[in-house]
């Protein structure tokens, strides 16, 4: 159920708005059950047609000027058709809109505090064996099967699960897994992105000597004037490859920020580059190649995961994900963001190969929330709000008419498409729209000073400071940084982070029978100063995690890595890796999608698993270099003992199951598979068949 207590951030009332509007809204909610239908309350009250106030003659939805004036004053002017009255109404409406826009809205969403969550009796749990647990932990934390040496050490008692967990939590595979995990949380989709990677395109052309030379597209005709001749070419170490010099036409290679012929021109700006007087600058930084765009996007998609990576590696508070005044850039982002920020002139040592590093930003920043990446991929306030709700408050925005009716709004929440645009109320004025926008537009207020290229505006429309306050959990927050701080400090954030991690480890979000555990885990997480690695350590020790029934299906990345560890062969289907081609059937992710990973079992999943097993096993046994065949000659028929040795080794590697836990039925089954196929086609195919059965079985896919 929804907690409608004002302590949870509902905005109740304005200083000044006709009570009749609130009353009428309440009437609408009570009398008319249909969620999205317009009503004729006002039309009947004022004895006019709906289209007097609404764009839609049937009523409802956006209001025209007369309707907005009615919203603002409660008065339907009888003289409304007169030109001077129209002007007057316009002025009143504009002032009213500014007042509306300046009124902090409530950030509204459905949230039940932890201590009010539904509970159910916890079932009894049966622990899985240590070796099965090791397989599970390794796949969850490292996205790979455990190292055979670790398995042997565990079986021999030379190590323990807890020791291995500690080692895993500080491994490169863990950080790789967590970067992928955080990429899923932020889920950067393809943005509306019409900015080039720098200011002017640079292309390779055929020089007069027949060899390729680089020339700025802003200096067309340079080659005709001899500046691309061999004697004129300049060797430059470009930002995209600082280790190799490339030949560049003379004028293109110019690094002058201000041309001597016109010092007012700044070559590090779009206008300067369009002047026809400018070269490409130091290391050609003011110019971009045609393939830079996709590479920039690829780097942008990693930024959120890299922020999380830094936090985890350094055991910093996980809240910095939404509060930090720093971010992580590689050389490519440094270059591209300088372009967006208008700082290309200051970038004299650009190098896209530069590794990821921490970059300090200003006090208005707030972790992932204010990164160029996040603002661009979720390119308007509503998309930004939707993603923020999902990623950090675990709230999925859906049309919620009940919530709409429970809130006493005196006017729709205003929304601004850009810091320099006027605020508007009309999009939210229809019920069908307001059912979502009540949630989205309240939250997006804190972002109103940011545009979708990561630029911050102190002042906006009308030359006044852009209002950016909202009410979050009963407290006013002014802007993105304040919202981030309040969010990070809240139980909501800690609970959401725990819930997402729980889903990663168990395949489901917290259930009612896990409520007590959930409260403990969240309390512990907060008490540890939001130490995420500690939370992971705690969760994998729980009875629920270690229960024999904690089953999940393997996903694309787990297949790719584990099969690579076992077989060391590529799986190509056409021109692509097979798990990339069939990604959607095996829980993979295309980040252009809105939906998250689909982890459900399906016939298509089973077909991909079987096809991969059959083809990769065939390729691996042909190649004979596969780890599974270490010490085995696949052309020789093994005796029974040798065959059992291979079966035992394979069980250990694929299922992490020692020989004494391999059932007699399985031993017979695999012997039979091998011998039958060997009798038909020889020992090598016998190994292929065993491998196929092993990797296409349900107990390989589920862990």
């Amino acid at each position, binding site marked *: 159920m929804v907690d409608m207590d004002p302590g949870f951030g509902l905005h109740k009332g304005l200083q000044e708005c006709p009570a009749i509007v609130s009353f009428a809204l309440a009437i609408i909610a009570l009398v008319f059950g249909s969620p*999205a*239908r317009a009503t004729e309350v006002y039309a009947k009250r004022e004895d006019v047609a709906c289209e007097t106030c609404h764009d*839609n*003659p049937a009523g409802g939805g956006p209001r025209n000027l007369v309707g907005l004036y009615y919203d603002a004053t409660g008065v339907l002017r009888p003289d409304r058709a007169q030109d001077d009255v129209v002007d007057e109404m316009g002025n009143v409406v504009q002032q009213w809109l500014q007042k509306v826009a300046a009124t902090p809205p409530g950030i509204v969403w459905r949230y039940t505090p932890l201590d009010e969550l539904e509970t159910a009796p916890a079932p009894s749990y049966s622990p899985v064996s240590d070796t099965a647990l090791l397989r599970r932990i390794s796949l969850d934390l490292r996205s790979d099967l455990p190292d055979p040496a670790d398995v042997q050490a565990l079986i021999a008692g030379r190590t323990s699960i807890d020791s291995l967990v500690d080692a895993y939590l500080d491994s490169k595979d863990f950080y790789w897994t967590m970067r992928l995990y955080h990429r899923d949380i932020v889920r950067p989709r393809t943005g*509306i992105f*019409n900015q080039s990677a720098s200011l002017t395109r640079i292309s390779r052309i055929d020089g007069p000597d027949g060899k390729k030379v680089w020339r700025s597209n802003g200096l067309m005709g340079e080659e005709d004037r001899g500046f691309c001749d061999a004697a004129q070419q300049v060797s430059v170490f470009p930002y995209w490859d600082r280790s190799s010099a490339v030949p560049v036409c003379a004028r293109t290679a110019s690094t002058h920020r201000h041309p001597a012929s016109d010092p007012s021109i700044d070559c590090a700006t779009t206008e300067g580059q369009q002047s026809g007087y400018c070269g490409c600058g130091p290391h050609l930084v003011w110019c971009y190649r045609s393939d830079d765009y996709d590479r920039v996007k690829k780097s942008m998609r990693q930024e959120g995961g890299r922020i999380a990576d830094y936090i985890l590696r350094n055991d910093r508070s996980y809240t910095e994900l939404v509060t930090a005044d720093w971010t992580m850039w590689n050389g490519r982002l440094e270059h591209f963001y300088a372009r967006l920020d208008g700082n290309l002139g200051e970038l004299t040592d650009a190098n896209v190969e530069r590794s990821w590093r921490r970059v300090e930003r200003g006090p208005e920043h707030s972790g992932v929330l204010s990164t160029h990446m996040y603002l661009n991929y979720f390119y308007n306030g509503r998309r930004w709000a939707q993603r923020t709700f999902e990623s950090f408050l675990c709230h999925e925005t*859906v*049309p919620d008419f009940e919530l709409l009716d429970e809130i006493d709004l005196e006017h729709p929440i205003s929304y601004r*498409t850009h810091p320099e*645009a006027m605020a508007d109320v009309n999009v939210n004025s229809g019920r*069908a*729209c307001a059912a*979502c926008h009540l949630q989205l537009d309240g939250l997006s207020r804190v972002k109103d000073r940011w545009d979708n290229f990561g630029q911050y505006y102190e002042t906006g429309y009308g030359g006044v400071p852009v209002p950016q306050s909202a009410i979050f959990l009963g407290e006013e927050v002014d802007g993105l940084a304040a919202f981030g701080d309040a969010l990070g400090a809240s139980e909501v954030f800690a609970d959401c982070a725990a819930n997402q991690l729980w889903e990663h480890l168990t*395949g489901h979000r917290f259930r009612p029978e896990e409520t007590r555990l959930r409260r403990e885990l969240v309390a512990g997480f907060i008490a540890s100063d939001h130490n995420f690695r500690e939370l992971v350590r705690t969760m994998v020790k729980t009875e629920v995690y270690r229960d*024999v*029934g904690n*089953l*999940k*299906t393997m996903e694309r990345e787990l297949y790719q890595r584990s099969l690579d560890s076992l077989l060391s062969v590529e799986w190509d289907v056409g021109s692509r890796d097979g798990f990339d081609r069939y990604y*959607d059937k095996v829980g993979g992710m*295309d980040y*252009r*999608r*809105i*939906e998250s990973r689909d982890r*459900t*079992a*399906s*016939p*298509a*999943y*089973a*077909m991909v*698993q*079987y*096809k991969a097993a*059959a*083809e990769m*096993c*065939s390729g691996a046994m042909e190649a004979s270099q596969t780890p599974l065949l270490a010490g085995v000659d696949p052309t020789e028929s093994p005796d029974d003992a040798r065959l059992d040795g291979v079966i035992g080794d394979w069980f250990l590697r694929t299922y992490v199951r020692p020989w004494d836990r391999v*059932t007699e039925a*399985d031993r017979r*089954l*695999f012997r*039979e*598979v091998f011998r*039958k*196929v060997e009798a*038909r*086609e020889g020992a090598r*195919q016998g190994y*292929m*068949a065993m491998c*196929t*059965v092993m990797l*296409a*079985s*349900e107990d390989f*896919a*589920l862990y």
Partner: protein
Amino acid sequence: MTAFDRRRLLQSLALSALGAGLPACERSSYDSQHLEDTPSFTQQRAPHYFVFYFLMGGWDITTLSEPRRKAAKMSPSYAPSDIFEHGGHLLGPSMKPLVRHMDQMAVLRGLRATALNHPQARFQLVTGTFKEPRQAPAASIQTRLADLIGRDYPIPNLSADGLRPATFLGDYDPHLEPFRIGEMWSLRGLSRPRGPMIEQEDILFDALRKRDAAFAEAHAKHALAADFAKSAELARQVAESDYRWRASEFVEPRFTETRNLERNSRWGRQVHLVVEAIRNDISPIITAGSGEFDAHNSNDYGYHRKAITRAMEAVAAICDGLAEHRTADGASLLDRTTVVVASEFSRQPWINELGGKHHWDANTALFLGKGVNGTKGGLTMVGECDEQLFPQPLNPATGKPDRGADDVTNAHFLASVLAMAGIDPGLHFEQPPIQALIA
């Protein structure tokens, strides 16, 4: 195995693999001799086939069923001379590719979308309901149809809608899970592994069945284990039935290319998938389409009309392909198929501040083929929007805005689809079908 023994199956697979490398001119396509070799030519199993073609992102219906001239708050993307007349109705330029099939077509106008955000509108379009938070969407119309008419098929519910899924299982059993595949070559590749293990499948499948049964028994309390085992068994049935043959024995695409629609494009490959999947009786319910129609800014809107026209050309090519093939009773495959074309909502009639068009709740849907109340020599048009493109109420029983008229919603639309299959929609949707659409 069916009548096709293993030897013939493997020969066919080898031939088809060889055939894939031959130039098109060396292979007959859609010719009668080849078709008589196809078991599906005489043995179509389903009484009714459905094709759902969705243009996801929101389409500008003024280019289709609601043409307008330029006016205040009305910004069509074409000249008045591009509007044409057919069957007494004025139509937008993107409808031109469908003229040759308008005899068998009905258009529903004035549909009101009750959600204007993409995902919820998409769910609404195909399920009739919103999706609840943290829940899977309800079963879509395709899954309901697959349950009612497709259970004999290993793959009853085929879908080429990867990026913007519009087919959902809901709480139906895994057998009806939408099988997402974008083209016939992928289906062929997925339905059989390359390499020598295909020859050993009797041994492999026997072993896998035993192992999976043991695992499911050991985890009898766990739904995932049971679902997984069932899914794996269905996958094996695909392999062991004549499905592999059906998925492999397809002809190269041969529809007439246009400037917009090339055979080797993803839209062209979808056309091929739809026609061949029905011709080879692979699945009775097929979903296709694409998701590039959102057009809020000038860049996207500049491309929008071309994208819609290409989609209509694809639909026309699907209808052409189905109409070309005749079964033993003389009927064409189009006579056995209903094609449904829709988008989740439309676009505002005027240009916005970004040079594009935002979302709009007036919508339209097109229906062609079996069960559709066509008009010989004309076009069946039901419902309408007013001059400002606001949807108008309609009486579902009469098809007119008379007494009993109400908003036309997705529930009416989906109920009409079921009614076209002769299925009582009352068990599935709260609203009645629009009778005027139904033959």
